[in-house]
C-alpha cells in the first residue's frame, strides 16, 4: 500500500455563527488514488477542498499533505505549497481572460521562478498532450467550455503537482464536454496522478474515481471504494 498523500485528522471548520461546515472530519488519500468527495450543497465539500489546497485553515484538527502540515502554513508558505504540491481545476475554469492559453498555462511555473523558455516548452507539451495545442495563442474567451477546462487542467499540471484537486470540474459544461473532462481525469489518474474531485454529480464520480467519500452536514458519512 502506498503512503498517504492527504491526511485530515478530526478537522473542524465553522463560518461566523452558522452551523459548522466541517465537524471532526478525518480523511486519508493515498498516492495514485482518484477520490470523489460527494455531498449535497452546503455539506462541506468545498470547505474540505479549500483546506487541502491551503486556501483556508481549519478551526481544529490537522491537515497534512505530502508530509506538509498545511494548517500551520502562513500566506506565503501556503502559496509556495500550492505551487509545488497542488494543481487546481475550478468549476468556472478561472482562466485569466487577458492572457493567451499558453500564458495561462505557463503562469504557475513562472510564478515559481521557472525560466520562460522552459515554461513555454512544458506548456507546449501539456497542450499537445491534452489536444489543444492549436489554441495556444488564442484567448480563453474564444474557446468552448470543454476546451477551457482542458486549458485549466493543463495549467493545474504545469508544476507537476503530486495532487490534482478539481472542484465541480464539469459543473459548467454540457454533457459531452463533461464526459470529455471526466475521461481526461481518468486518464491522468491511470498515469499515476492522484486526483481528488469535489462534485455532486454521481456519474462523474463513478466514471473517473475509484473511491467516494460522502459528506452530510460537515461529517463524513460514507467512504466507499468502487470499481471504475
Amino acid at each position, binding site marked *: 500500500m502506498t503512503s498517504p498523500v492527504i491526511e485530515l485528522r478530526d478537522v473542524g471548520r465553522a463560518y461566523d455563527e452558522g452551523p459548522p461546515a466541517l465537524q471532526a472530519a478525518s480523511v486519508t488519500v493515498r498516492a495514485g488514488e482518484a477520490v470523489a468527495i460527494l455531498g449535497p450543497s452546503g455539506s462541506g465539500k468545498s470547505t474540505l477542498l*479549500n483546506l487541502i*489546497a491551503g*486556501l*483556508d485553515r481549519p478551526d481544529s484538527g490537522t491537515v497534512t499533505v505530502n508530509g506538509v502540515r498545511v494548517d500551520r502554513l502562513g*500566506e*506565503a508558505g501556503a*502559496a*509556495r505549497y*500550492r*505551487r*509545488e504540491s497542488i494543481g*487546481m481545476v*475550478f468549476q468556472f475554469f*478561472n*482562466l*485569466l*481572460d*487577458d*492572457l*493567451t492559453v499558453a*500564458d495561462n498555462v505557463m*503562469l*504557475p511555473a*513562472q*510564478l*515559481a*521562478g521557472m525560466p*520562460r523558455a522552459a515554461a513555454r516548452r512544458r506548456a507546449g507539451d501539456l497542450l499537445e498532450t491534452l489536444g489543444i495545442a492549436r489554441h495556444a495563442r488564442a*484567448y480563453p*474567451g474564444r474557446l468552448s467550455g470543454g476546451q477551457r477546462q482542458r486549458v485549466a487542467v493543463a*495549467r493545474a499540471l504545469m*508544476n507537476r503537482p503530486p495532487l490534482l484537486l478539481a472542484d465541480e470540474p464539469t459543473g459548467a459544461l454540457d454533457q459531452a464536454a463533461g464526459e470529455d473532462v471526466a475521461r481526461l481525469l481518468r486518464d491522468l489518474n491511470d498515469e499515476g496522478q492522484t486526483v481528488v474531485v469535489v462534485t455532486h454529480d454521481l456519474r462523474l464520480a463513478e466514471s473517473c474515481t475509484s473511491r467516494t467519500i460522502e459528506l452530510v452536514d460537515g461529517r463524513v458519512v460514507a467512504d466507499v471504494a468502487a470499481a471504475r
Partner: protein
Amino acid sequence: MSAVGRVMRVGVSRRRTQTIVIGLATLMAVTASVLGGGLIVVSGAPFDDAFTAQNGAHLAAAFDPAVVAPDDLAASARAEGVTATAGPFPVVTVVSEENGRPNPPLTFAGRDDPDSAVDAVTLIEGEWPDAPGELALAAGDVFLPLGERLDFPALPGSPTLTVVGHARSSTDTAEGWVTEDQANTLKGTGAPDGQQMFYRFASAGTATAMETATASVAATLPADAMTGSRSWLDVRRLVERETAVYVPFLMAFGVLGLVMSVLIVGNVVAGAVGSGTRRIGVLKAIGFTPAQVVRAHVGQALIPAAAGTVLGVLTGHLLAVPILAETSDAYGAGALTVPLWIDAVVVAGVLGLVAATALAAAWRAGRLRTVDALAVGRTPSAERGRAAARIAGGLPLPRALTLGLARPFARPVRTLAMVAAIVFGATAVSFAVGLSSSLDVILSARDHDVADVTVRPEPPSTGPGGRPDGPPPDLPDDTSAITAAIDAQPGTKAFYVVREAPAVVAGTTEDTELIAFAGDASWGGYTMIDGDWIGGPGEAVVPTGFLRTTGAEIGDMITVTVEGGRTTLRIVGEIFDLKNDGMKVYTDGAGLTLPMKNASVAVAVEPGTDLAAYTAELGRALKPLGAGAEEFQEGGSEMITILNSLTAALTLLLVAVAGLGVLNGVLLDTRERVRDMGVQKALGMTPGQTISGVLTSVTLVGIVGGLLGVPAGMALHNAVVPAMGDSTGIRLPQAALEVFTPSAVAALGLGGLAIALAGAMLPALWAARTRTTTALRTE
C-alpha cells in the same frame, strides 16, 4: 429618508476612500480660492476707502521753485483732464539729530489747513500745527508720541519742532506737516526746497492714463519745472504689495486645486458608475428612474464636496488672518476679513463644477439599459491591454511584475486619470520646492549673509532704568587697530569695513542710505541683478527700488549729498536689496571724503574654523578697542514664513489628493480584479508577489506623471515667482529663478513615482491580505 437619499448615504459611507478624496480635493481648491480671491479683493480696500474719503491725489508732483514760481504753478490746474488741484505747498527736507547723531532725512510739507480739494489730510489725534515750532507727523513713518520734540541743531537758529498731532495722507504726500511759514523759513534761506501740487484727473485708472495726464500737466509749465511725481497707482501698489505677493502663487494653487477637483470627482464618479454597473441594474430593476440613479451618483460626490467646501472656507478665512493683518495695521482699519460674497462665489463655483462633472460622469449610469447593467460583469473587457500583456510577458522580469506592468493598458481612461493626478501632485511638489528654494535665495540675498562674523561697536553702558547712557557708539574713524586685530586673528579669511551715512540724492526726496566699503566687499553676498559689481572709486551699485524711484539707469551719474558734502558716482550695477525700499547707494570708500561713520566690519573665516571659538576670541581681542564680534544672525521674514507654511500646507494637501487619486484608481482596479488575483493566489502567487504586482502596475504611471509634472512645476515656478516679484515691485536676481539643479530635478522626477507607490500601497496590502477563497467567490 427617501430611497435616493438612502442610496446616496450608503454610497458615501461604503466608498470611504472616494469620499475622502473628493472632500480633500475640494477643501484644497476652496481654501486656495477663498484665500487668493479674498486677498485680491480685500488688500486694496483700506487704501480705496481712505483715498475716496480724502479725495486722494491721482498725481503728487514736486516742482523746483527756482524754475517755476508758486503763483505760476496755478496754470497747471488748467491742464487738459485736470478736474481738481490743491497747492502749491512748500516742501523742505531736513535732518534732525538725536544724542548728537543725525536721523534719516524727513520731508515736511507746509500746509495751514489739512482740508483741501485734493489730498485732504486726516488728523488722527492731537492738533493740526498752527504756529511755528509745531509739527503733525504722518502716521506709519517715524513714530513719535505727541509732545516729543525733534531738534535740528545743524539748521540756522537750531530750531525745534514739537509733535502736536498725528495725521494720515492716503497718498503719502509727506512725512510731516508744518505751517506754510514754518516750511518757508525752517532752513533759514527764506525759501523751501520745493513746491508740491496735487491733481485729480478725469481719467486716472491706468498707468497709460496717468502718463498722459502727467505729461499734460508738465506741458503747461517750464521745462524741468517738475522734479518728481508720484502716481496714486504706485502708492496703491506699494500698499497692496504685502498681500499682493501671495496672489500669484495662491492663484496657481487655486487652479491646480480646481482642476484636480474636477479630475478626481469625474474619476471617482465614473469609477463608481463603472464598478457599480450591476448595482445600477438592480436599482433600476426595483424601480429607480434614470434621473434617480443619476441623482444618487451626483449626490455621492456632492456630499463630501460640500463638507470639503465648508472646511475650505473656514481654512481660507483662518489663513487670511495673519496675511491681512499687515494691511489693516497700515491703515488703522479694523480687522480685515474675506468678504462673504467671495465665499459665496467660490462655494457656488466649486460645487457647481463638482456637480457638473459628477453629472457628466453619472449620465452613463442613467442611460444604461437595465438588462445590460444586470448582465455586465465587473471585470473590464479583456480585449483592452492584451498587446501590452503580451509584450510585458516577454520581458525578462519576474511574472508578477510583468503582469502588473500591463495593467495600466487595460483601463486606459482610469490610467490617464491616475497619470493626471500624479502630474498635478508632481507639479505642486516641484513648484513648492522651487518656490521655497527661491525664497531661500531671496532671503540670503536680502541679508547679504555670506559674512560669518560681524564686528560692531560695543553697546553703550546703560544708565538708570536700562536706558542707554549716552549716544550709540560708532567704530572709531580710524579702524586700522581693529582691522589689524582681525587680520591677526587665526582663521580670518577676508574682511571689509562698512561705512554708512544718511544721504540725499539729487532728483528725489526719498531718504537714501549711502554705504561705502573699505576693502573688497564683492564676496559679501550682494546679489547682482544686472550690470557689474563696484570696480573702484567713483562707481556705485544700487538696488532696483532706487532705480525705479529715481528713474536712473545703469551708466547714469548720480549726485549724492551727505551733510552738505557732495560726490558724483556712476551707477555700474543693479543689486538685490529690499531694505529702506531699496533707497541705497553702495560704493567704494577709497578716496571718499564724505562725513560717514564706520558702522561695522564684515569678516569671512577660513573653511573648517570653529566659528563660535573664533568669534569669542576675536571679541576678546577687540574689546579694548571698543568693538565686539558676533556671529551672523540670519534674519527672518514673517512674509516668507507665511509663504513657506502656506506652500507646504497646500502642497501636502495636493500631494495627498494626488496619492488618494492613485489609491482610488488602484482600489477600483484591484476590486475589479479581485477574482483574477484569487486565481493567481490559488496558482501559487505569494503575498509579496501580489504586492509587487500591484505596485508595479503604477510604476509606469508614476514615472510618466513625474516626467510630465516636474517640467510643469518648473514652468509654473518660472512664471509665478517673477510675477510675485513684479507684484511687489521687486526684480529678482537670476539666482532666485535658477534653483532647479539637475540632482533636484532627478529627485523631483522620482517624486511622481513615490506618490504613485504611496497611493498604491494600501490597495496592494489589501489585495495581498484578501483571502483566496473570498476572492474566488467574488463576482
